[in-house]
C-alpha cells in the first residue's frame, strides 16, 4: 500500500514535526490567552508580524537568535495592544482580535515594502540549520525524525513542557487558571485581574510570533506575502481540540502536521488522477472533524470572552 509506505517513512514523520512546529507555538500562545479568559483572534496577524520582524532583523544584520527575540517582542507589543483593548477597556474580544489581525498584517507588509522598496524576488537569509547531534542523529528512525530538526523545533517542544510546568506547578499558573474561570476569586484574594490577564495575553502573543518567526527563519529563508496562510486560525481550532492542555496541544499540532505532510505525499503519488486542491483541503477538513468530536466535551474556561470590571458583581 502506498499510504502505508508513506506512514512508515522517516521523512514523513520528520516533515510532520517540522510542519507542526509553528502550530505548537501558536496553540500554546492561544492556550495561554484563553486560559486567562481572553480570546486572541489577533493570532493570524501576530504570526505575520513575527515572520516579518524576525526575518527583517536578521536581514538587517542581527543574529538568528536576535531575530527570534525581535519577533517575540513584536508579538508581545501587539498582544499588549489587544490586552489593553479587551481587558481594562472591556471591548469585544472578537472585534479587537480581528482588528489586530488586519492591522498587524498590513503594518508588516507596509514595513516590508518600506524597508525593501526595489526588490523583485524576496531576499534570502541564512536560516537555522538542523542541529547536529552526534551519535543520536545516526539512530534509525528517531535520528531523522527528532535529531535533525532545527533549534526552533526544539524550542517549541521545550515550550510545551515549560507552559505545562508554569500552568500546573507554579502559583502564577494557578492564578491564570483561576482568572479565566472566575475573576472574582482572584480579586477577592487581593490579586489583580487586569495584571494577570494582560500578562498572559502579552506572553501568549509573543509565543504566537515565534510561530511566525519559524516560517521565515527555519522552514523558509525569506518573507512572502500570504505565507502564514491561515495557520493562526488553525491554532484557534486546535486549542479547543486540546481542551486547553499543553500536552494535548502538542498532540493536536502533530496530528495536523501529519495530515499536511500526508497530503503533500499523496499529491505527488496520485496527483494525476485527483486534483491537487482536494489534498490541500484534507488537513482542514480533518481538523474540522476532529474539532467536532472534541468540542462536544470541551471544557471552556468559564470566564472566556467575559470582560471583568471592578465593583460589578
Amino acid at each position, binding site marked *: 500500500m502506498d499510504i502505508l509506505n508513506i506512514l512508515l517513512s522517516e521523512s514523513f514523520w520528520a516533515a510532520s514535526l517540522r510542519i507542526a512546529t509553528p502550530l505548537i507555538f501558536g496553540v500554546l500562545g492561544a492556550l495561554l490567552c484563553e486560559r486567562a479568559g481572553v480570546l486572541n483572534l489577533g493570532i493570524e496577524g501576530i504570526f505575520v508580524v513575527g515572520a516579518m520582524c524576525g526575518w527583517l532583523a536578521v536581514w538587517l544584520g542581527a543574529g538568528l537568535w536576535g531575530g527570534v527575540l525581535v519577533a517575540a517582542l513584536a508579538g508581545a507589543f501587539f498582544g499588549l495592544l489587544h490586552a489593553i483593548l479587551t481587558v481594562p477597556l472591556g471591548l469585544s474580544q472578537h472585534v479587537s482580535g480581528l482588528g489586530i489581525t488586519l492591522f498587524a498584517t498590513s503594518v508588516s507588509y507596509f514595513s516590508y515594502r518600506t524597508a525593501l522598496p526595489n526588490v523583485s524576488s524576496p531576499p534570502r537569509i541564512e536560516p537555522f540549520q538542523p542541529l547536529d547531534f552526534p551519535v543520536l542523529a545516526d539512530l534509525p528512525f528517531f535520528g531523522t525524525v527528532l535529531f535533525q530538526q532545527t533549534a526552533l523545533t526544539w524550542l517549541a517542544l521545550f515550550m510545551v513542557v515549560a507552559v505545562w510546568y508554569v500552568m500546573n*506547578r507554579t502559583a502564577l499558573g494557578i492564578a491564570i*487558571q483561576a*482568572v479565566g*474561570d472566575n475573576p472574582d*476569586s*482572584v*480579586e477577592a484574594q*487581593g*490579586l489583580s485581574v487586569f495584571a494577570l490577564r494582560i500578562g498572559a495575553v502579552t506572553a501568549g502573543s509573543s509565543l504566537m510570533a515565534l510561530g511566525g518567526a519559524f516560517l521565515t527563519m527555519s522552514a523558509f529563508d525569506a518573507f512572502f506575502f500570504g505565507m502564514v496562510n491561515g495557520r493562526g486560525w488553525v491554532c484557534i481550532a486546535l486549542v479547543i481540540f486540546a481542551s486547553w492542555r499543553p500536552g494535548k496541544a502538542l498532540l493536536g499540532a502533530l496530528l495536523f502536521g501529519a495530515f499536511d505532510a500526508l497530503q503533500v505525499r499523496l499529491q505527488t503519488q496520485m496527483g494525476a488522477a485527483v486534483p491537487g486542491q482536494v489534498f490541500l483541503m484534507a488537513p482542514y477538513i480533518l481538523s474540522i472533524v476532529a474539532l467536532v468530536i472534541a468540542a462536544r466535551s470541551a471544557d471552556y474556561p468559564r470566564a472566556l470572552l467575559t470582560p471583568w470590571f471592578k465593583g460589578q*458583581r
Partner: protein
Amino acid sequence: MSNIVLSLNGLSKKFGSVVANADVSLTLERGEVLALLGENGAGKTTLMNMLFGHYLPDSGTIDVADANGQLCPLQLGHPLAALSAGIGMVHQHFTLAENINALDNITLGAEPLLAVRRSTRLARSKIDRIIEKSGLKAPLSTPVGRLSVGERQRVEILKALYRDANILVLDEPTAVLTPQEADTLFENIKAMTKDGISVIFISHKLHEVLAFSDRIAVLRHGVKVGEMATSQADEKAIARMMVGAESPKVERTKIATGDPVLQLKNISVAGRSKRDSLEFVSLEVHAHEILGIAGISGNGQGALAQVVSGLMTLSEGTIQVGGKEITKPAPQAMISAGVGRIPEDRHREGIIGAMTVAENMVIERLEDSDIQSRGLLRPDAIEAYARILEHSYDVRGPGVTAAARLLSGGNIQKLILARVFERAPKVILASQPTRGLDMGAAAEVGRRLLEARERGAGVLLISEDLDEILGLADRIMIIRDGQLVETKSHDREAIGLMMAGEAA
C-alpha cells in the same frame, strides 16, 4: 485597650439615583457574633462590600483594630488592604475558581506569584490545623467544581482564616444549606469566636438570627433602623423594624382536594449531569392542592421543572395533564394543556427583557382573538389589557410600554404572575417563586398561589425555602438525587434530615 475591633462610621453609597446605604454606623467587639438583618435590597451586602473594598463609599470611614487593639483607619476601596487588616469575607455568590482545587483556591494570592518552585506542604499543614480547630472539613485536593455547596462554603471560610482573618463577614451563609449543615456552620462559628474571631453575618431569616447571634443590627432601605442585644430582642418588634409594618400573614383554609390535574408516572430523564437528571419519578397534583417539593439545590429540581414545562425529552414515563396524556411534551403543548409556569430564573426564563411589559404579559396567549386578528397583533388591545393587569397585580415600573428588563425582580415576578394567573391554568408550576423577593412581594406570591388553589388549580411548588413549603403546601415530597419521596411529617427537623439523605 478597648474591646472594639471594627467601627464603620457614617458610610453612604449611591448607585445612580438609588441610595444603597445612608450614613450607616456600626461597631463590632472581639469574639462577638453580630447579625446584620434586613430584607432583600435593604443594603446589607452593599455595606459589607464597602467594608471589604469591593465598593468605594461615597462618604464615611472605617476603622479596624491593629495588632495592639488600636483603631486605625482602613484604606477604602482596596480588597488587599481589607485582607491585610484581617477582614475576611464569604460572599453569597462564592468567589471560587472551580477548575482548581480547594488548596489552590485558599493559597491563591497568599504565596509569591513568581516563585519557580511551589511547595504546598506548609500551606497544607496550616490548613489542616485550621480545620482541626474550627471543624470546617473540606476535601483539599478535589477541583472545587466537584464539591457540594456546603463544602464550597467551608472552603470560602478557610480562605479567610488562612489569611489570619479575625473579622469574618458571612453574606447569607445559610441560604444554600440544609438545616443540619446550617447548624454545623453555626457550631463552627461558635468555635471560631472562642478564638477571638469576630463574626458579622448577614441574614433575612429571623429564627437563625435569634438563635445564633449576640447582637442584632437591622437595616431598612439602606438605613440602620435598630440595634439590640439578642437576649433582649423581641421577634415581633424586629420583624416590624425590618418591613416597617406588621408582616402580612398568609391565611390558608382547608379545602377538600379534587381530581388529579397533573400526573407524572415513572419519569426518567438524563440531563447533562447527575444533578439535572430524574430517576423513575412519579407524582400527582390534585385540584385544590399545593404539592410542595422540598430539597437542597441541585438534586433534580431543575429537571423536574423542565419536564413539567415541556422543555426536556423524557427517556421514560408519561405525563398527564387534566387526565389527558401529553404524547409529545413541548412547551406549547404544555401551555395549551393548561400548565402555567413560574420559572426559577425569572430574568432569563420568565421574561424577554427587550420586549415590552405588555408584550410579555400576552406572550402565552397570542392565539386568542382579543390579542390578534388574522395573524396580526392588536397593539392597542394588548396595551389596554396590560394596563388592567398592571393595576390589578400592582406591577410598578416605567409603564407597560417600557422594556420588561427595566423592572425590578419583584415586579418581574408580578408580571409573570399576571401572565400565568389570567389564563386560569389547571396546573401551576412554581419554581422558587419567592427567591430573592422581599417579604411583601413574597407574601403576595403566596397569597396568589393559595387563591389559585381555592379556585381549583393544582400547584406544584418547588422550593429550597423550607419555611415557604411548610407555610403553603398541603402535601410535601422530598427530592434527592433525582428521586422523590413523600413525607407525612411537617416537622422542620425531620424534613431537613430527609433532604440531607439521612433516615428521618
